């Protein structure tokens, strides 16, 4: 099994996640795209772990998952709070600092 196809797939997924963060308006979907980017980097870590023959990459991927779980909990709580006050989950509506 070669390494390059896995890394290329990871790069493609990361790019899709990036474009999603830039284009989507719904805060929850933006968050999902961030998760997609984290997952893509995890794939790269696991692949490099296999390429190098040690498990450090897998441990790093494990830590990424833990941090992602914590981040999702806090992020979704923030989205909920914003939705409660503004009745909207759109990232464009939270623009009070502009004025």
């Amino acid at each position: 099994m070669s390494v390059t196809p896995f890394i290329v797939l990871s790069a493609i997924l990361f790019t899709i996640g990036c474009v999603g963060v830039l284009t989507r308006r719904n805060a929850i979907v933006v968050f999902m795209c961030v998760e997609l980017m984290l997952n893509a980097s995890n794939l790269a870590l696991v692949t490099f772990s296999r390429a190098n023959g040690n498990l450090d990459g897998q441990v790093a991927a494990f830590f990424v998952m833990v941090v992602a779980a914590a981040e999702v909990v806090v992020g979704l709580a923030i989205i909920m709070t914003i939705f409660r006050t503004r009745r909207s989950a759109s990232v464009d509506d939270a623009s009070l600092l502009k004025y």
Partner: protein
Amino acid sequence: MVAFWILAPIMVVAALGLLFSRKAVHAALLLAVVMISLAILYAVQDAPFLFAVQIIVYTGAILMLFLFVLMLVGVDASDSIIETIRGQRIASILVGLGFGALLVLGVAQVSFGSAVGLDAANDGGNVPALAQLLFTRYVFAFEVTSALLITAALGAMVLAHRERLSPKPTQASLAAQRMRDFAESGKHPGPLPPPGVFARHNAVDTPALLPDGTAAPGSISRVLAARGTVKSVPDIADDVRSFTGDDSTTSSAAITDGSDQ
């Protein structure tokens, strides 16, 4: 490698669907497809522990949390197509394409050589080997992780907590309110009548009949009445008559039209 070539197109298509789906729920389900495919790729690449964690933590916990919040926020809270910044979408797609081309070309030019493989590292099993690493070299990071998780849990509790502005209604106050309504506006204090139960219909779209044969307005859900799916009483009478083949009008004469509600 077969698994990779089967899953890679599925993953890319599902990830693109994440960009183009109008509804957030569809995006969440497509993300689930990507995550489960990733889990299988982990299993292919000698990472059985991460395979399980990916399915349990990511697909099981994180994605379900996403769906919970989607249900709370409202499923039909879809994206607006109006651009706040003019040309932002085109610009970001171009930037994304450029970034992707840069990444893919850069990665493709590097020669990684042949993979060493994890057979030696996974010698005593993947999970013991990972645990060995986690509790020796990465033990400090592991401890810090616990602080992070506690902070996240506390933060979510603080953010999601809502102060109650009015006192919680008790059973006594609710009963007093019902009696006050009855005294002031004559609203019936008891429960609403249940929907009708007839020989052929035992459904919520069938109104109950009052003693004079008219339909009881309170027995039908307001939503059904607004949709116009409530069965009118003469319809039911006709239905029953066609079923029994009896055209005696003893029962239907008493039943007046109740469809006006």
